[in-house]
């Protein structure tokens, strides 16, 4: 970062980060053309984010685990065989290179064996809790945190995670409630080390080390693929993930049922816990954005969608700490992409409170014409070709749908063409039709 970083305004910081994205440190391009192509693609996204007109509408092909199936493999195979993982993703990369404005490396395909080693209970994945032919991994909703454990979380989140929460989601940590808090080490350690001698505790740490070794093998392969794509001139589009604190509590701590009861039965504790979590979220996202060249943090949004809660509830419970997280990232010049699953038609008023050109909203089933009209002059919008069309429609239908979206949302810039959500399977011609539409109908004069 620049020396006078602290003195820069958020807009200046964002400009500085965009510059770094355009000339990423450490990337050696394969050729002059690759470098030129890279800069063109990044510029395309930057201009769309800045609500300016790029050369044409940028496009993100909505592929999540798609490469695995495209290569004739499946998610289960590539979660366990990292060579095959790289092979599938590279095949997709080579075959689609001309249709890619950005490339998402297989960093979102977790290493299955590492999860097994720690006996991970928070998710099910193909062959592990759900059928081997399932195309996605899925979260197991449960009350991992009890209603009376808010105080433990609020008092010391790290301690809560290590000794209460993790033993419930890592089977191998079942003895960890017996560990002393790390803060108990002061003066000469006498009794504090004893729990680390217990066989069950040791088994937990051994498994953790083993899972770490396994994950290193995996990340080397992922890094190889990502590095190759960047050298060939296809940029990444996000560096880190963050969640709204309400979702953090509602998704994987208290569960939907639990968090919604808490809104009535212990609202103060819920608020306090969200306030406690917000700075942790901010720090993690900031570290991720600072580590890479891509100045974009991605936030998938869940329980604030239309229908999940009233405007009043959104304003009271969801928005304050969500906004706090976004604003902290924006202050540091980080671009935030919000993925609003489901519909977000009733929340436009809140989005308007954010600074101009600092966020991009990726909509799933939101009314795009209304979004363009109401938000078009304050933030970039992205989306929203339905997954059903991508998977079951014809290339002509996909192209027509994209054309309409481009005509409505692309006007004047500030739009990225992509899916409403990502798909794992489906005709390759439909993917190509999406990019063909961006090129044919999305070119700005």
């Amino acid at each position: 970062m620049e020396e006078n970083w602290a003195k820069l305004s958020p807009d200046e910081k964002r400009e500085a980060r965009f510059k770094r994205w355009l000339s990423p440190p450490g990337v050696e391009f394969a050729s002059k053309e690759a470098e030129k192509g890279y800069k063109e693609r990044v510029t395309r996204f930057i201009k769309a984010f800045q609500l300016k007109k790029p050369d044409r509408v940028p496009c993100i092909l909505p592929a999540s685990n798609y490469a695995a199936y495209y290569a004739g493999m499946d998610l289960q195979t590539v979660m366990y065989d990292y060579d095959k993982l790289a092979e599938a993703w590279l095949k997709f990369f080579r075959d689609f290179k001309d249709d890619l404005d950005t490339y998402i490396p297989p960093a979102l395909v977790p290493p299955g064996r590492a999860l097994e080693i720690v006996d991970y209970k928070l998710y099910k994945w193909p062959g592990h809790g759900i059928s081997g032919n399932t195309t996605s991994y899925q979260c197991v909703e449960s009350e991992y945190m009890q209603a009376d454990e808010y105080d433990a979380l609020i008092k010391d989140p790290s301690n809560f995670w290590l000794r209460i929460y993790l033993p419930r989601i890592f089977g191998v940590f079942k003895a960890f409630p017996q560990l002393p808090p790390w803060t108990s080490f002061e003066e000469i350690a006498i009794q504090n080390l004893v729990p680390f001698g217990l066989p069950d505790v040791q088994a937990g740490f051994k498994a953790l080390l083993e899972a770490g070794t396994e994950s290193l093998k995996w990340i080397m392969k992922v890094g190889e693929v990502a590095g190759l794509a960047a050298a060939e001139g296809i940029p990444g589009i996000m560096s880190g993930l963050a969640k709204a604190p309400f979702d953090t509590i509602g998704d994987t701590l208290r569960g939907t049922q639990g968090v919604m009861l808490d809104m009535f039965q212990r609202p103060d504790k819920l608020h306090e816990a969200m306030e406690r979590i917000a700075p942790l979220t901010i720090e993690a996202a900031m570290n991720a954005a600072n580590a890479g060249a891509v100045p974009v943090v991605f936030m998938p949004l869940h329980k604030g969608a239309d229908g999940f809660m009233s405007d009043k509830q959104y304003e009271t419970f969801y928005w304050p700490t969500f906004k706090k997280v976004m604003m902290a990232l924006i202050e540091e010049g980080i671009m935030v992409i919000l993925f609003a699953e489901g519909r977000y038609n009733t929340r436009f008023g809140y989005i308007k409170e954010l600074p101009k050109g600092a966020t991009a909203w990726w909509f799933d089933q939101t009314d795009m014409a209304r979004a363009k009209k109401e938000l078009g002059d304050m933030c970039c919008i992205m989306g929203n070709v339905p997954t059903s069309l991508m998977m079951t429609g014809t290339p002509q239908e996909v192209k027509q749908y994209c054309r309409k979206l481009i005509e409505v949302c692309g006007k004047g810039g500030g739009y990225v063409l992509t899916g409403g959500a990502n798909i794992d399977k489906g005709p390759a011609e439909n993917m190509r039709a999406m990019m063909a539409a961006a090129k044919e109908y999305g070119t700005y004069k």
Partner: protein
Amino acid sequence: MAEDFVNLLADLKEQEVLALTEKRIKSGEDPMKILDDSRAAMAIVGKRFADGEYFLPELVFSGELLKQISEMVKPHLKQAVETKKLGKVVIGTVAGDIHDIGLNIVEFMLDVNGFDVTNLGVDVPVEKFVETVKKTKAPIVGLSGFLTPAFDAMKETVEALDKAGLRKGIKVMIGGGQMDDEVRKYAKADAYGKDAMAAVTLAKGWIGAK
């Protein structure tokens, strides 16, 4: 007292409605009456949800209050509870999908609107749907799914019902996350419902109830 009770529960006044439940039980009132009133209150909750006055948190909380009231009343019940139902509906999240937030809202809304609902839960194998439709003779099946793998699972479930010779006698509705009318066509279901209210409207339409 009964009217107060209905309003207190519909308005989600936890302490007041639990205190009143206690009072009614102590007064020796027929516990069936309390359950009838609870049902009336839940119907109001369902209506407020349909009207956009209540949302998911209110449904969850009303369900919790009903559970507490039922537990208080149960020890005093002399006969089993039997109520007239509009018709049977079998619902479940299809194979390969473990999401149930939407599924449970549909169950709630069908239930408060008078349907006898069999909820098979999540990741339901096609055979389980076939078997349950056979056993219950339910004329309506609701398939829930959140993610794209559900597209094929829905198709396979409808095919299995067809193969078992059950398809003609039933109506199949689908809904959830990435589902839409395209998926309805793909899966060869009868209708797609955008939300839980649509499920109620569809089910009522099919059995000819108003």
